[in-house]
């Protein structure tokens, strides 16, 4: 079920009312209800993959209990391996099977062999990368004795399948989310209102920013060879806002929806385009994934505790794996590699933790130097997004060739001028709102300091903007494909 669908608009209020009506009964019933509605939410897309979700949950639930009982380290490692092989095996099969097969065939063809192997018609189960990482983190934490495993199967099933964040995150840690299923939830008026505000802001970013940017971006990227370097670069700027509006919009809707049900999910985006260097950008972009890689890959590899060269290698490994996590294509690997190259000067100069606080934290406006740094970082990010958006390596080569040609200085040719104007208007609104809210957790939070009447005016303004500027046809969220 898509958040931006009529189905969800009907589903959410019904589930919300029933959920709080059964609050007076045992907590267990509320959790069972959440499991049922989460499975309905997921099954709406394709019910066949519910078994996969259930199987994955069951494996980690059982293994974590075995891990708790077992004291022999060798056997514990075997249990952990079973969980890793099962989860990563499923992910690998559904997401990477054809990619590896393709490359295997290409390799053999290069050496003169022509293996007669057929591709499998595999449908990628939506959200598999997200819930796999969530369940894996649980088992690894139990293995490392950082977390007590749960015996309550319904709490665990609800933790894995919790519908607001099931298909595109935030990738929650068991230590944050699971205990919330043990406690009785009591309806909190101000939390619910805050949730609705965040949902509204998420919809604005998805429907007004992301979907409109998509139209402009698709026009250029579907026919790259006829566009100049300047047009491709302009399209990459719109793509930067598209992917931000799409993914952070989804996260805002997810976090806001969770608040309606009395849950607190982790923040996933903290104004990444206000970052003054690439390290700050990665601390603010897709935080749940970045911290996952930090905790379960970077730190186990030694993190920054060992030599500088080891730190650099670890950073490269994390970025390349992160790229590959996004999709089974060399483009994503190159995208990860490029980001690690961006990181390199900061690591060498030991300036990767220079900008911790948000820009202009104690000031009204940033300094000129900060503005220049923000723009420079943004341009680097936009260039990297080209690697992300170009569907194939041949498309990527066309983009790079055109950008590094004379045509970069041509006047950009974007056909949909009306869309460009309206979308740019939406982007300006978003930047202003997010700048004013930069110390808060989401872009609409700054209005809390105003009187209720003014707050209502802001809501109406955003609703009118959505009504007049959204795309007529609904589009899926980009990160569903990951």
């Amino acid at each position: 079920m898509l958040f931006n669908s009529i189905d969800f608009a009907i589903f959410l209020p019904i589930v919300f009312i029933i959920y709080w009506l059964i609050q007076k009964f045992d907590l267990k019933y509320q959790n069972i209800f959440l499991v049922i509605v989460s499975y309905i939410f997921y099954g709406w897309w394709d019910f066949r993959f519910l078994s996969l979700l259930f199987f994955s949950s069951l494996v980690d639930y059982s293994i974590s209990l075995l891990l708790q009982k077992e004291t022999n380290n060798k056997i514990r490692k075997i249990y952990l391996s079973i969980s890793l092989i099962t989860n990563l095996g499923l992910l690998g099969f559904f997401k990477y099977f054809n990619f590896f097969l393709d490359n295997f065939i290409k390799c053999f063809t290069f050496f003169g062999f022509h293996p007669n192997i057929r591709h499998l018609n595999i449908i990628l189960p939506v959200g598999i990368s997200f819930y796999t990482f969530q369940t894996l983190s649980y088992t690894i934490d139990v293995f490392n004795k950082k977390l007590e495993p749960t015996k309550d199967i319904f709490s665990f099933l609800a933790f894995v399948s919790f519908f607001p964040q099931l298909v595109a995150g935030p990738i929650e840690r068991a230590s944050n989310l699971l205990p919330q299923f043990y406690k009785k939830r009591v309806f909190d008026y101000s939390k619910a209102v805050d949730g609705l505000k965040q949902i509204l802001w998420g919809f604005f970013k998805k429907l007004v920013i992301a979907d409109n940017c998509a139209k402009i971006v698709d026009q250029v990227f579907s026919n790259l060879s006829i566009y100049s370097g300047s047009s491709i670069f302009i399209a990459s700027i719109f793509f930067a806002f598209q992917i931000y509006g799409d993914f952070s919009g989804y996260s805002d809707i997810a976090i806001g929806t969770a608040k309606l049900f009395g849950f607190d999910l982790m923040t996933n985006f903290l104004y990444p385009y206000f970052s003054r260097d690439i390290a700050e950008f990665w601390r603010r972009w897709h935080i749940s994934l970045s911290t996952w890689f930090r905790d379960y890959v970077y730190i186990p590899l030694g993190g920054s505790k060992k030599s500088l060269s080891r730190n650099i290698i670890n950073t490269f490994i994390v970025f390349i794996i992160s790229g590959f996590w996004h999709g089974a294509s060399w483009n994503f690997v190159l995208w990860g590699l490029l980001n690690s190259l961006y990181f390199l000067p900061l690591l060498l100069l030991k300036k990767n933790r220079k900008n911790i606080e948000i820009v202009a934290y104690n000031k009204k406006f940033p300094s000129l130097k900060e503005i220049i740094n923000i723009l420079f970082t943004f341009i680097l990010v936009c260039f990297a997004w080209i690697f992300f958006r170009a569907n194939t390596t041949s498309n990527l080569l066309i983009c790079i060739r055109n950008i590094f040609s004379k045509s970069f200085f041509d006047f950009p040719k974007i056909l949909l001028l009306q869309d460009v104007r309206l979308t740019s208007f939406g982007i300006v609104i978003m930047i202003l709102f997010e700048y004013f809210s930069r110390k808060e957790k989401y872009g609409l939070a700054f209005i809390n300091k105003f009187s209720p009447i003014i707050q209502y005016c802001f809501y109406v303004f955003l609703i009118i903007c959505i009504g007049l500027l959204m795309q007529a046809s609904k589009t899926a969220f980009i990160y569903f494909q990951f």
Partner: protein
Amino acid sequence: MKRFIKKILIFSFIVSLIYPFFIIGSAKIFGSNQKNLKFIPNRSWTKKTLEEADNYGDVNILFLGSSHAYRGFDIRLFKKFGKSFNLGTTSQTPVQSYFLLKKYLNILKPEYIIIDIYFPLFESDGIESSIDIISNYFSIYNFKLLFLSPNPIVLNTLIYANYYYLSNRNNYKIKEYQNKFDKYISGGFVERKPQFYVSNETFVKRKIKMNPTQKKAFENMINLIKQKNIKYILIHSPITKIEYISYTNTKELNDYIRQKGIFLNFNEIPIPLNDNLHFYDRHHLNQYGVHIFNKYLIEYLVKIFPELNKEKK
């Protein structure tokens, strides 16, 4: 929680009251043809067709469909079967066909319904046709279009159209649609002046992906016709061969339509039509083509419904 729900309901109510004012204000400032508001009257024959349908009386044959219907079924050639009406409108998709059928079934009381199928319209969102009906024909019943195919453009256009018609009701008159190539024939047919198609287009092979909303509307329409015990037939009017062969999944589409009733696809039935001589564009017959197509169609109709020759209203 009661307070929360109460506040949401009050806020939703206030927004639903305020929202139309902003739409009207936006139309006054930026015009009535903008991104999500498309009130564009007087660009098609829809007004004339629907106004005539209101007072046409009972018919024997009712035609439904897009421009292929109102330009392809010449009701004059069907006179021998009694009175007929062509309810085809611009880009009419199954959603609008179902909507119009529900509205006019009790007005026109047809005994036979001929539904034109054009595969690409099954993948359409149907917005163009909805705004064509809303912009040209005022009816409170038009709100049903919004429920059949919810969409911000349809909603905003409906709001503005209602304001426009209500505020101009005393001196309201949309200028009659004129087109130097077209002649409107009473009963919903539009005759095109002789023109020929010069093919210089390239067609990329593509698969038609059915839109679930259209599929559902189509099935609802067939069920409604069956419930009313009306005889019906599904027709795919001829389009140029060059366009028809560009669809890669015609077999699958034909099979699907055939499950829903008697289906005659005149792109698969050999009739003497030539892309250059009998079409004026890639998917519309010219009047010469219409004559040939209707002649063959009538032969098939008589075979399928022999009683047609006897019945007259």
